[in-house]
């Protein structure tokens, strides 16, 4: 790796990342570079380490070997810098993880007020703007428990966007939703991709991958097995494990 200006273009750089849960190795020699504005879909069978991989990017999981540089900041034991990284990296979870004791609006203004130190009124405007965008502004004063799964996930996306992040991570955002609600969430994500947001998305929504992704990454047993542009990836998978996985997932 050289100190060329191109490093500046990189949103995320992972080199030789290894991670173990106890004696079990979940990530093996992961090398991954993501350019600014790039949209990446990560797929693979369950237990392949794809969630762990993106959770390493905002250090919800700690890697044990290798380097991870996010937005020019290396993730290490410097906790202050990690909070800096986290403020720039939005994350959307499979189980929404909205704060149930706060209203939708408060969910969205909390971090801008306490982390970004935005004045209350301004945070309010920013939040309403994003809630408008995910078409849920009329529910702003309800509590998360009163919303459907799809609505909650859209709020979760708006909550992450309110921090004006550089990078968005999606960890199976539609996996716990009813089929009718998957589309409303995917529509929001497609809109976001159109705006040039850097996105890493763990998902099994292959339609989404085809339309949006610049690159599809297939993981198995903690390693990257195949990596290609979506057209090539779906039409001409190279690795037998990829072919097997795609035939399973596309067969119905």
């Amino acid at each position, binding site marked *: 790796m050289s100190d060329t200006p191109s490093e500046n273009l990189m949103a995320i750089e992972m080199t030789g990342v290894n991670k173990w849960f106890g004696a079990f190795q979940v990530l093996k020699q992961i090398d991954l570079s993501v350019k600014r504005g790039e949209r990446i879909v990560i797929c693979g069978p369950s237990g392949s380490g794809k969630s762990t991989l993106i959770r390493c990017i905002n250090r919800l999981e700690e890697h044990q070997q290798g380097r991870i540089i996010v937005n020019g900041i290396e993730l290490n034991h410097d906790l202050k810098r990690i*909070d800096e990284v986290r403020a720039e990296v939005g*994350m959307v*979870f499979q*189980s929404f*993880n909205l704060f*149930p004791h706060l209203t939708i609006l408060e969910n969205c203004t*909390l971090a801008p007020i306490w982390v970004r130190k935005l004045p209350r009124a301004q945070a309010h405007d920013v939040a309403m703007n994003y809630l408008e965008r995910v078409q849920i502004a009329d529910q702003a004063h*309800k509590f998360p428990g009163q919303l459907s799964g799809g609505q909650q996930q859209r709020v979760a996306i708006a909550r992450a966007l309110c921090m004006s992040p550089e990078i968005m991570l999606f960890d199976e955002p539609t996996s716990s939703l009813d089929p009718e609600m998957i589309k409303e969430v995917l529509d929001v994500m497609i809109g976001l991709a159109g705006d040039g947001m850097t996105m890493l998305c763990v998902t099994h929504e292959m339609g989404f991958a085809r339309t949006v992704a610049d690159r599809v990454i297939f993981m198995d047993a903690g390693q990257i097995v195949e990596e290609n542009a979506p057209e090539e990836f779906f039409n001409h998978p190279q690795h037998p494990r990829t072919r097997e996985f795609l035939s399973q997932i596309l067969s119905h």
Partner: protein
Amino acid sequence: MSFVRKSYLPETSPPLLSVGVLGWLKANLFSSVGNTLLSLLGLYMLWVIVPPLIEWALLDAVWQGSGREACLVENAGACWAFVAAKFGQFMYGRYTFEERWRVDLVFLVGALTVGLLMIGRMPGRRYLAVFGLVIYPVLAYFMLTGGAFGLVEVETSLWGGLLLTFVVASVGIVVSLPLGVFLALGRRSKMPVMRTLSVIYIEAWRGVPLITVLFMASVMLPLFLPPGTNFDKLLRVLIGVTLFSSAYMAEVVRGGLQAIPRGQYEAASALGLGYWRTNLLIIMPQALRLVIPGIVNTFIGLFKDTTLVMIVGLFDFLGSVQVNFSDANWATPQTAASGYAFAALVFWIICFGMSRYSMRLESRLNEGTRRA
């Protein structure tokens, strides 16, 4: 076989025996042979207990009188005259008679503040809470002890009765909750030193009876301090009670912390909130809400445990009642029973009030925030 519904079915009313008074009786009292027998047994026991109790406490009771003679009549019930005559002592102990208005004022302002806070949403509620938690304790301290602002000093050794009970209980309650929160966080901390210290503290205090703590505070502690140091017995007891109950509080709060899903911590971290903000803004509001019943349970326990200060020579409410049993002027067969009944009633009213308040608080906080 194909079927297409032409129109949706209308709603119909439920069977008669499943709703209304009849439905309730059937479901709750006479749902089976066993339950019917139990219901009848219950009714019989009420029949046996309630009429004599009413007779003793109300019909045959002596309400007025200036000495034992009033209560020595034949078939006399409760001797409420005794309670009426000693009421001042039950409330204030030996607090200087001319200065009792200060206690009344402190009680009144305290009751008003708590009452207004209970009403719920109203403008200025925040300021009222600040007043209650910051200004009121200082005010109460100076009003009760005196010795400043032209008020006569009243030594704490003279304090007693319900006043002392309230002082010990409210200080214990107000201080032990935040202490308990910190201890609970400490016990779940990733830092081994913090965790070990918290565990040692909690287990040490929980493993010792309160009576032992009170004895230590009032009898043993002075032996270890340099001779001549003399700090207030009430203060020592207050510290003992507070530290003791904070250990219990810590475990209640820890129960709430364990019920918060990991996703809440992760979502807070992912937004860039640090340890303290995560706990203050996200975790504690949810955890404390979950354990309101446990917290209030500990409060009620603490309130009743204050009666133990009698053992180190402080006369709380129950102590003041008991001391007056030995007054020769009021020596009647009914004196003790009446005094204990009165004490029980006062304790019950206060504890029941706390429990009702906690239930209201719970339902208000849970409005619309139930987990999906």
